[in-house]
């Protein structure tokens, strides 16, 4: 009887796990089936053609999303890691630290469109960056910061205290200790957290529409003050606003590219993590 119950529960849990995997496979299969006709080398490498969408590609959207990602890695990730270092390594346990931690927790649950509105008011208008790549990078960087901070704080906290003490006991400064002992040990966790944040940010549509994403532009952005195209916004427009009968198929194909991009990033994170682990073991 007990065995029987056990096997029923076991079956249930296995079933739920398979359902989760099933959803992922289903989404990807559906998108690939819908977008199969549109996916081609032309689609990946040629600029968007407004009149005849079949004759062009989505290179501007790919490039736009790539630039955004690069911007977040350059602006948002270092700021987040620096904040985490301050919180874990330097800040004393006091009211200020509590307030900062509380603010970060709350920022993580602010809807992305609110970040967009903030960016529109501050970066676009007040600082006069205009509707631009720069404004969008700053908005998305702000958005990923709480995630990066949380991941980095966990990674830094998991570095054993005794390594810090041993380094200090050799006459190292706190900064040398952080740079040469703590950060390398925390790196795998920081990279993983950052890339998950990056992938989520690149899928965002609402905040970047407000601060500079556009559905169509000539050529690629040439400066940080240019407008830009992105994969999620492109998908959105094709799926809902475009009259061409082939548009849904192209929307699906664009979504496949976006999923592919985030998938590549996860794989990249895994590879980096393994490399760091191996460096430790030699």
């Amino acid at each position, binding site marked *: 009887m007990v065995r029987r119950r056990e096997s029923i529960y076991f079956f249930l849990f296995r079933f739920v796990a398979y359902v989760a995997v099933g959803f992922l496979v289903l989404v990807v299969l559906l998108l690939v089936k819908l977008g199969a006709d549109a996916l081609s080398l032309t689609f990946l490498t040629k600029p968007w053609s407004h009149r005849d969408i079949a004759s062009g590609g989505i290179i501007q959207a790919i490039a736009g999303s790539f630039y955004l990602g690069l911007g977040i890695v350059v602006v948002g990730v270092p700021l987040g890691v620096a904040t985490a270092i301050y919180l874990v390594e330097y800040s*004393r346990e006091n009211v200020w630290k509590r307030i900062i931690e509380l603010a970060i927790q709350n920022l993580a649950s602010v809807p992305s469109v609110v970040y967009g509105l903030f960016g529109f008011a501050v970066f676009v208008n007040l600082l006069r960056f205009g509707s631009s790549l720069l404004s969008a990078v700053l908005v998305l960087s702000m958005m990923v910061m709480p995630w990066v901070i949380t991941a980095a704080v966990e990674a830094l906290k998991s570095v054993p205290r005794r390594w810090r003490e041993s380094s200090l006991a*050799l006459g190292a400064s706190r900064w040398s200790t952080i740079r040469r002992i703590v950060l390398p*040990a925390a790196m795998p966790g920081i990279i993983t957290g950052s890339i998950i944040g990056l992938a989520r940010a690149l899928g965002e549509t609402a905040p970047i529409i407000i601060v500079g994403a556009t559905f169509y532009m000539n050529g690629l952005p040439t400066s940080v003050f240019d407008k830009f195209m992105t994969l999620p916004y492109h998908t959105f427009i094709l799926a809902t606003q475009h009259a061409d009968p082939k548009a849904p198929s192209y929307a699906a194909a664009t979504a496949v590219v976006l999923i592919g991009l985030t998938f590549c990033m996860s794989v990249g994170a895994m590879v980096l993590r393994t490399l760091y682990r191996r460096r430790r*073991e030699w």
Partner: protein
Amino acid sequence: MPPVISGHNVNVWYNGLHALKDASLEIAERQITAFIGASGSGKSTLLRCLNRMLDTIPTARATGEIFYRGQNVFAPDMDVMALRRRVGMVFQNPTPFPKSIYDNIAYGLELQGYVNRRRIGLLRRQPIDPQAMAASTDRLDRAVMQSLQDAALWDEVKDRLHKSALGLSGGQQQRLCIARSITVQPDVLLLDEPCSELDPISTRKIEDFLLALKRDYTIVIVTHNMHQARRISDETCFFHLGELIEQGPTGVVFATPRHPLTRDYLSGAFG
């Protein structure tokens, strides 16, 4: 000869808990001084005062005076990094960094600006085989090799200098940590129960190592193993519930303890 370190009325509180009460002591040059006593008797606390490692415990507060070769250790303008280069410390659990054996030893010297031509920036160091290492004229190579030889580790690790130090046995790791501390050529070496997690054979090797180091270094060792104190130390300080009860030459303290508490502890009545 004046003492290397002298402490006067040192008190330490952790969050209001009075952990060390009015301890005064003198530590003689090129001798091994043992701090013995039960857990929570304040011996590790006093040890951590000597090179300001107490600073790493946010709740700790210390008063009193400690002088290291005439310098006031507790003075606000004390250069703590310079002090710790002169007064090194080895901890209870072996704490090799997650780096190669070579990099572990080289770390302290690299902090002081030694550069090794086989390493550019933070990139991985080019490996070197034992023969080339023995023949090398590079300052860092020589210092690393010397430290490993002093620790009697050279023969055990020479073929895996560039493998992770975490792959060594517990005893080897602890000897590596001591070697790492002496590579920066300190004046005083503080050890906080360095053998408490090791087997008797590894313990023996470390004791031999410390006895050899005594020629060049002043050593303070915290131990809850009174036999170890008797085997290797010249001076013994007995601590009980935060008080330094008795200090004297090890032979005298063990043969004719003045204080009844010391007598009870040494005879195994408690602790």
